[in-house]
């Protein structure tokens, strides 16, 4: 139990007033970054790196990590209140979170998100301490072939569980995949469907798309109904009730596991775990029809997975020096600038620093909970603002967010265009989530498939040689087989699944 001893020393250091202050400031800044749409954790962390130059290395890292998971939580607030994901990983939270707000349960949604984030983050850190090294080297075996299989399985689960709405879900998935094809071909390097527009070379920006599909579309729908407030229901709760907490226990547990496991695999990104946790929750629920209509488990699972992922993704970074997402890459840059190179030698060379940082993860997650629970009421009060002001405010917020991402006006047009598309789709009752998931998974799926084939020299037999990939690919086959035979057990899974 050498690790435990190190950890205790780490706690002693992390709890000194100075480091505590850095973690606190980091959480505050991070929450703010998460609230501002477009300014996701990656950009936010990058912008704030110079701020840490004047701190000592440990302090700087503690603060940057706090900014990171603070931002992962902050995105929730706007998702629930105004249906605008403050950062990409909060997309799933919009689905049930905003519905809850509409029923006057914004307080419950934000409260359970804070609790779920805390539990997910803390448990993932415990797991990090216990198994960082062995699991990290296992994750290396996860090559492009396994990655592709995982992406296919994820996409099929979402579509396959759409029940009677399957045709619509399938259609939306295909539309998402089509949009995902736009951009420079990942292997040949030639532009596709870009019509000579350079802004399209990197594909359609994900954040402007979701801000349009969710936020702008929501405004259009609300404007049409001549609402006086963004959310018309009376605010009923400030905190989740006991019953709501009991309902969420399972979701939080499962969300932690999903988030942690996927966080170990480099390149998965924060959105996939939230989707997977959500779909899993709906699958195990006895009342799946409540999902999409304000099920608290939906919020709890996604938010827990989100923060469990954020903490677990530190495993590949600390143990192997592999940044598993753009945000972590920025963090790694900050580590290096501060004279610390993450990797297997880090635990040996600078144990005091590593364990202080890990201990600060615990401290930071606790701070985040303390910071956010009292603020829930304050945030929820924002819904009292009359719709005419709120509408203009949200739109300005979205435009600035879309523009700020790459300082590109083009992204603003993309957002507005997808806002109109989202409005039409909502009117026609088409589910939006499958399109969003396809848009995020499409490029990863394509790249990993083509890399796999580059490695194998063009032979598909490589999938048969790799047991993990084969097992993952079996999941969609089983799902489809189930659907074809339609056993009784799947009967309750009707209607809108993810919408």
């Amino acid at each position: 139990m050498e690790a435990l001893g190190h950890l205790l020393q780490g706690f002693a250091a992390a709890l000194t007033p100075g480091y505590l202050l850095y973690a606190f400031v980091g959480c505050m800044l991070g929450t703010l970054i998460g609230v501002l749409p477009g300014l996701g954790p990656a950009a936010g962390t990058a912008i704030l790196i110079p701020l840490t130059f004047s701190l000592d290395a440990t302090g700087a890292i503690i603060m940057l990590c706090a900014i990171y998971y603070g931002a992962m939580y902050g995105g929730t607030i706007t998702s629930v209140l105004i249906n605008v994901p403050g950062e990409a990983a909060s997309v799933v939270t919009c689905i049930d979170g905003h519905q809850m707000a509409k029923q006057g349960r914004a307080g419950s949604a934000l409260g359970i998100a804070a609790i779920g984030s805390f539990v997910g983050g803390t448990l993932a850190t415990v797991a990090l301490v216990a198994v960082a090294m062995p699991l990290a080297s296992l994750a290396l075996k996860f090559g492009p072939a396994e990655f592709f299989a995982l992406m296919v399985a994820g996409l099929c689960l979402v579509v396959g569980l759409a029940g009677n709405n399957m045709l619509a879900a399938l259609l939306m998935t295909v539309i998402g995949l089509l949009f995902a094809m736009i951009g420079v071909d990942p292997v040949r390097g030639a532009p596709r469907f870009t019509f000579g527009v350079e802004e399209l070379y990197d594909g359609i920006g994900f954040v402007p798309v979701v801000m349009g599909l969710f936020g702008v579309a929501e405004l259009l729908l609300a404007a049409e109904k001549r609402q006086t407030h963004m959310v018309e229901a009376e605010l009923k709760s400030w905190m989740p009730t006991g019953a709501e907490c009991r309902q969420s226990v399972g979701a939080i547990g499962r969300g932690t596991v999903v988030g942690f496991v996927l966080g170990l695999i480099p390149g998965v990104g924060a959105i996939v775990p939230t989707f997977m946790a959500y779909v899993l929750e709906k699958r195990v629920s006895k009342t799946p029809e409540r999902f999409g209509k304000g099920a608290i488990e939906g919020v709890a699972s996604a938010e827990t997975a989100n923060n469990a992922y954020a903490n677990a993704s530190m495993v590949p970074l600390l143990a192997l020096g592999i940044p598993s997402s753009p945000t972590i890459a920025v963090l790694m840059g900050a580590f290096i600038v501060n004279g610390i190179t993450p990797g297997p030698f880090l635990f040996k060379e600078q144990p005091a620093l590593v364990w202080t940082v890990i201990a600060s993860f615990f401290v930071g997650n606790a701070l985040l909970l303390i910071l956010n629970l009292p603020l829930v009421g304050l945030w929820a009060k924002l819904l009292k603002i009359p719709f005419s002001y709120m509408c203009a405010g949200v739109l300005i917020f979205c435009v600035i967010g879309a523009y700020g991402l790459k300082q590109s006006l083009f992204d603003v047009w993309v957002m507005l265009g997808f806002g109109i598309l989202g409005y039409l789709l909502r009117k026609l009752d088409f589910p939006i989530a499958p399109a969003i998931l396809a848009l995020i998974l499409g490029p990863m799926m394509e790249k990993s498939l083509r890399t796999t084939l580059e490695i194998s020299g063009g032979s598909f037999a490589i999938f048969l040689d790799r047991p993990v990939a084969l097992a993952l690919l079996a999941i969609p086959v089983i799902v489809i087989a189930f659907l074809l035979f339609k056993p009784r057990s799947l009967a309750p899974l009707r209607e809108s699944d993810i919408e």
Partner: protein
Amino acid sequence: MLIRRRTLLAATAATAVAGPALAQNYPRRAVQLIVAFPAGGSTDVGARILAAAAEKDLGQTITVVNKAGAGGQIGFTEVARARPDGYTLGFLNLPGVNTIMLDPERKAAFNVDSFIPIINQVLDPGLIWVKGDSPYKTLADLTEAARKAPGKISACTTGILSDDHLAILMVQEAAKCEFRIVHFDGGAQQITGVLGGHVDCAFDNVGGVFKRVQSGEVRGLAVTDVERSKFLPNVPCTKELGMPTVISSSTRGVGAPKGTSADVVKVIETAFLKAIKSPEMLQKMDAVGLALKPMVGAEYAKYYADTQAQAKKYTEWALKQR
């Protein structure tokens, strides 16, 4: 859209400075330095250190603006189209800027004459590396294996038409062998790919992997340069291994749009050169494993032209293969 934006820009600029920017009244306001890659990347880190240091001598704020996207094409285009008044400068990443303009399918809005190369900052040479316990102990072992079994030994790049991709083609040509080329997206994927045993070797740059080589986790086979890297004194360079045509690196320097007056260029060159030669710059760049290589005037112009010529040869070769 574009015309409107440019008129607006022109109007703003006209109110800010009247008349052409002459050296005696340059710079009068903040200078923006466009980086064609995202904040936090190694170009960005270097640019921010440079901007902070050069500000003092320039006497004006230098703002680093990240215009990332399309492998740098968005940012390079922005620099090429900017008013040549010295208030918009850009980081030129070679050979990235060259391969983009050389690929006809990318329809780049700039060509080799669109930029005035002012001063180079970093030259990060290529590094060919394998796993620490790999059977390939030397570059000759690796090329020998790739010659005996053509297309069986996999070598990964950090992206299509990156300097690493060109380096693989150079090695293939010099050693008359054939690799199975796998395009990854950046250095992190290479680490996963090689350490996980999915690919045999990787072509990257010294800055990204030197710590791992120092710790023995991975083995550096060769630095693709005319001399050894100061960060890896035990790894031979390609020139001493008898492959003088395998010279590849990622270099980054500051350039201005075509038409910027020579006086203004001189002011920028002086301020930036002083910054690059400062001890603080050396210390900060050493920490991240990036070798400084200040080049100005005719030397940098020649380097820019030579890189273009070299990139042309291998880009055409790469394009033929796709």
